[in-house]
């Protein structure tokens, strides 16, 4: 592995003061160390933020939950309040990675997870994300796992996170701290579409550090679920997944928020599907109509066209499950 220097920060302010154009923050390391070994990322200096922030999960007075950026994925998924009030989040986390990686990976780090696009990771193929202006090998190459939503000719790399899909459906808020002070961002504003600049993946300012993720209080009677379809039953990235947060009132869907995973260049909030469902009486035909709306803007390539229908079906399935009742989170 390429050499770098190491700095352990004791507070967020110290971490931010140490940050520069050739530094990288490290917490769990599961993405960063992997990509440094592959020589895809080449930081000159790592700033260890494990001692520089919160690893606490705190219930808020308004009924919401504040999750410190350093909370490990496994601790978040197993927290009683998360399992009870946000089953979609627990299920999404437990359907991703492996137990070992979930013990290491942090909440903040998961937001910064990099794509699994093999052309990005191989270090030599044309890749606008790794080397702006070099082209996109996936466009004409093997792109079975690539995105059908939110792509551009410059990049069709899929956002790999399960957790982020749940956070998009939960309409979480991200707390940031930087040189200019603190601010919050709605979850959907954090990740960027690739457009002509796929190397810019998020709205962070230089040196800015994720300090927490806040989940809004669930509405009374709210149900939520995450379902992930993939080539293996465990320890595999999504081909298509859906996160749904839904509330019924009488016979109707009073409100719902939907996000799709495995098919987008970012965790994909499906506002069009939400509009179809809100106020309507649940029925298979309605779910299908909503799923069509969610995928209306899909622009598949030849090798990933199957994902359009797969994503529709996974969304229909989650909606049907949630109308029946709240499924229980897996025990692992």
């Amino acid at each position: 592995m390429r050499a770098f220097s190491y700095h352990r920060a004791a507070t967020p302010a110290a971490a931010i003061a140490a940050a520069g154009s050739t530094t990288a923050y490290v917490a769990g390391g599961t993405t960063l160390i992997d990509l440094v070994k592959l020589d895809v990322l080449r930081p000159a200096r790592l700033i260890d933020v494990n001692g520089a922030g919160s690893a606490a999960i705190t219930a808020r007075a308004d009924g919401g939950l504040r999750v410190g950026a350093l909370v490990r994925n496994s601790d978040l998924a197993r927290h009683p309040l998360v399992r009870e009030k946000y089953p979609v989040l627990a299920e999404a986390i437990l359907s991703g990675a492996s137990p070992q990686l979930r013990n290491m990976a942090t909440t903040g780090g998961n937001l910064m997870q990099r794509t699994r696009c093999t052309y990005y990771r191989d270090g030599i193929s044309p890749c606008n994300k790794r080397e702006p202006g070099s082209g996109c090998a996936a466009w004409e190459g093997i792109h079975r796992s690539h995105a059908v939503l939110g792509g551009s000719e410059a990049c069709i790399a899929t956002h790999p996170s399960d957790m982020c899909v749940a956070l998009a459906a939960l309409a979480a808020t991200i707390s940031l701290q930087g040189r200019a002070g603190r601010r919050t961002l709605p979850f959907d504003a954090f990740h960027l579409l690739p457009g002509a600049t796929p190397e810019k993946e998020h709205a962070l300012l230089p040196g800015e550090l994720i300090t927490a993720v806040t989940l809004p209080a669930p509405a009374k009677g709210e149900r939520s679920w995450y379902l992930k379809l993939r080539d293996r039953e465990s320890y595999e990235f999504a081909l298509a997944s859906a996160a749904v947060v839904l509330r019924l009132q009488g016979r109707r869907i009073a409100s719902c928020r939907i996000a799709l995973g495995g098919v987008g260049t970012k965790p994909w909030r499906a506002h069009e599907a939400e509009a179809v469902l809100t106020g309507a009486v649940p029925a298979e035909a309605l779910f299908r109509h909503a799923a069509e709306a969610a995928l209306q803007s899909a622009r598949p390539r030849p090798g990933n066209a199957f994902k359009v229908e797969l994503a529709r079906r996974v969304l229909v399935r989650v909606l049907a499950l949630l109308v029946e009742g709240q499924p229980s989170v897996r025990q692992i």
Partner: protein
Amino acid sequence: MKGNKVAIKLKINGALRRCVVEPQAVLLDVVREQLELFGTKKGCDHGQCGACTLLVNGRRIVSCLTLAVMHDGAEVTTIEGLEQNGQLHPVQTAFLECDAFQCGGCTSGQIMSAVGLLGEPVGPDDNAVAQAMSGNLCRCGAYQNIVAAVQQARARRG
């Protein structure tokens, strides 16, 4: 300290060890090459196979994707630390009794992963165990017996 090297302390298998490591040295390489504990195996070196699984402060992690400098003061348990007073750990016994390995390349990682699993809220059925062990690949395909061994260790623990 010469160059960028960093002095750290690790409580490894109960004994305090001091090492001087390069910042980019992953825990796996320090355990093997500096501490000369060769039971922890390097498989893929990218967090995909689980062969390098060990326990840090009681939790199972893959030691190839974490820097040794990040674990200054931590308690590390490797396969060499499982045996107590000449007695194998119940998971080791179960792996022997259930014939849960063939070539053995993945076995120390499997066993360390199973020891970590014992402290986790994993459901009672075989499917939950299979999912909870899915971070450890076995190219020989001994999966059925690995699940049986984990179940046996859990049953004996009560």
